[in-house]
């Protein structure tokens, strides 16, 4: 069974600084997807970024980027120029294709951005 581990229950960062959230996973599959979802206080689940395992290039979405280390089974999220609106719970998630299979979530990291 696939597992996702987020070892940092809580983190804080000063506004405009950079922060990195860690995620490791365990799987015997070679083809899979990895995601970071953000859940602000409204509790809406918002997709931040997506990475396909077969792609060596790390995904980037504006201020959000990942460091995907397939051999180490590591998938960290870097947030640059942190903003107050980035305050949220961040979940790392894993899925094997095809679409329709379950997303497996980590326990989450609560990020607070401080002014």
């Amino acid at each position: 069974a696939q597992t996702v581990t987020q070892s940092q229950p809580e983190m804080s960062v000063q506004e405009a600084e950079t922060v990195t959230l860690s995620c490791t996973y365990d799987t015997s599959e070679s083809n899979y997807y990895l995601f970071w979802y953000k859940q602000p206080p409204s509790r809406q689940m918002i997709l931040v970024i997506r990475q396909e395992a077969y792609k060596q290039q790390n995904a980037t979405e504006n201020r959000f980027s990942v460091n995907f280390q397939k051999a180490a089974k590591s998938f960290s999220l870097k947030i640059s120029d942190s903003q107050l609106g980035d305050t949220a719970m961040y979940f790392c998630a894993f899925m094997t294709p095809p679409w329709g299979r379950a997303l497996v979530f980590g326990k989450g990291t609560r990020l607070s951005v401080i002014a």
Partner: protein
Amino acid sequence: AAGVIQSPRHLIKEKRETATLKCYPIPRHDTVYWYQQGPGQDPQFLISFYEKMQSDKGSIPDRFSAQQFSDYHSELNMSSLELGDSALYFCASSSGAEDTEAFFGQGTRLTVV
């Protein structure tokens, strides 16, 4: 852009009652997922459907059932409700044909009293 629509947004039920949660996926999405998120917890996968057939099954209690209809909307039926069923229930949708990831609705907050 259209998003996943869930109804109702809030629901209060008594123990042993039944509840029905509805989910309307993003247009052209053929896959629907249901998740349960307790307070302070990560979302737990319940069940998913692809093209109206069950695709994957997680920790869904036998008291719960779900289906996807011909118009791709889905309903989660919950019977003999227990206090422990109080949670936020998310529906998400994706498109296998268009290779899009799961987009989540705003959730239905169920409170069992």
